[in-house]
């Protein structure tokens, strides 16, 4: 067969180049093969990516919502207010004296006096019942002083409120930040649920990707056996499967960002309508490019790690 006797075989040679570009080239070719195998079964690959996408979407939305809530809360954090309602029929002059006296305190930065008439007018415009309030013979509303405390933390606001109750002209002291505290508690709860959900979803994704990889390995059992026989290491055999996990994760992450965008656009347009009624222009934020990249990155990391765990376990179990 060999008519070229001049090329004589040499015993085991050490001619094995291993440069960085060589390494990159090798990986490029493995990645290409892996991608080609995924694209060869488009339906099941799409299904896997979609399942990953939906799983990623749930915690992403919840955590995104929570970060919005946190933004809203921090905006209100420095606007804790205490409203002191004054006795009915207290003359305006003495009410202003009370207000000015309060302003001299070090723990109060601002006071605003709202007279009973002003309160009625505000009620009329805000409620749309202006006509009715004009027809009232007697003003049922008390005058009030709205106080902005120096220290907006809930504890000191509460302490200040207690001191304000001592004022003889005061009938009722209301801390306006209580609803904020409730909102804060809800936000904390949402955050905890988000974290737990994230954990569950990550575990679930490990299972989904792991199972997909396991099936792929099962399908290539004969090939893996041959590669092991001729000296392929577990890492060499695992490489295309690691790329497969990475690609599934990436596709899932991209798909999830797409779904998230659809959900947000729908949500924001109805939110805008709602906010129009409140003459506000609040919009959900924090779902920008950074979040999209993070989502895709999370998908990729989870996909790769799940593939890593699954492939080594199953490849090790195959013996020639």
């Amino acid at each position: 067969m060999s008519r070229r006797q001049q090329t004589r075989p040499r015993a085991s040679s050490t001619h094995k180049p291993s440069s960085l570009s060589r390494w990159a080239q090798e990986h490029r070719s493995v990645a290409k093969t892996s991608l080609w195998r995924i694209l060869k079964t488009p339906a099941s690959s799409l299904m896997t990516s979609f399942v990953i996408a939906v799983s990623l979407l749930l915690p992403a939305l919840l955590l995104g919502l929570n970060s919005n809530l946190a933004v809203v809360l921090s905006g209100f954090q420095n606007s804790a207010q205490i409203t002191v309602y004054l006795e009915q029929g207290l003359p305006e002059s003495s009410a202003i004296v009370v207000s000015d006296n309060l302003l001299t305190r070090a723990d109060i930065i601002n006071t605003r006096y709202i007279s009973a008439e002003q309160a009625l007018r505000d009620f009329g415009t805000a409620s749309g019942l202006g006509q009715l309030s004009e027809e009232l013979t007697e003003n049922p509303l008390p005058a009030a002083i709205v106080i902005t405390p120096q220290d907006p933390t809930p504890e000191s606001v509460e302490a200040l409120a207690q001191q304000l109750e001592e004022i003889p002209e005061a009938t009722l002291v209301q801390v306006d930040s209580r609803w904020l505290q409730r909102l804060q508690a809800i936000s904390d709860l949402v955050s905890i649920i988000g974290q737990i959900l994230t954990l569950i979803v990550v575990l679930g994704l490990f299972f989904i990707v792991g199972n997909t990889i396991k099936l792929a390995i099962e399908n290539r059992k004969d090939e893996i056996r041959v590669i092991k026989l001729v000296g392929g290491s577990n890492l060499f055999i695992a490489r295309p499967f690691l790329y497969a996990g990475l690609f599934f994760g990436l596709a899932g992450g991209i798909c999830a960002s797409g779904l998230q965008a659809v959900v947000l656009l729908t949500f924001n347009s109805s939110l805008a309508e709602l906010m129009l009624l409140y003459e506000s222009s609040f919009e959900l934020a924090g779902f920008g490019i950074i979040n999209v990249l993070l989502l895709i990155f999370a998908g990729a990391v989870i996909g790769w790690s799940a593939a890593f765990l699954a492939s080594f376990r199953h490849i090790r179990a195959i013996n020639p």
Partner: protein
Amino acid sequence: MIKFDGVSKRYLGGEEALSNISFEIAKGEMAFITGHSGAGKSTLLKLILAIEKPSAGQLIANGVNISRIKARHIPKHRQKIGTVFQDHQLLSDRSVFHNVALPLEICGYQPLEAARRVRAALDKVGLLNKERSFPESLSGGEQQRVGIARAVVNRPSIILADEPTGNLDPELSGEVMKVFEQFKSVGVCILVASHDTGLIQRLSYRTLVLDEGRLAEDRRPGANS
């Protein structure tokens, strides 16, 4: 190069496939193993490849103690051994070229250097014109020769061949043996398991005869047989 020292292999069922085998094959030596099917030929080759481990005794192949080899060192060990399998063990979704290139791919050769070596190996077995074919479109004999090309492509220090001429006519068998002889002449240690008594007699190499797991005979050329 290959040294069996009182090696026994007992499978889990309790049946002893090899018992107390001792022999040594030197660098640049070529030997046949013969015997009926079930005499232990395949087990012997499996031990050298570290697919199985000896139950007793010591086996050293290519400087590696097979009884003590760690799982992570097995791939490196197999990379230095070229193996021709009885059932070819080719990958059906790869072309002949890529089947032969597999050992080089595993070792990380540059594509150009790999291609050069693959073509040289295919040329040696006379299949240079089939490099784009897929194994299933080849005859049994051609598949056998692809397996041989793959075994020699990485210039191994040991070549193991399990019935390498099983599907070949006498002329091709002779050609394959010539390829092995070329490697033998540059110091490769070659062990051929074969039924082909005609071929064995014609070539007059050292022959190890296995009988029910025992080494029944160690015939050397020159000695009367």
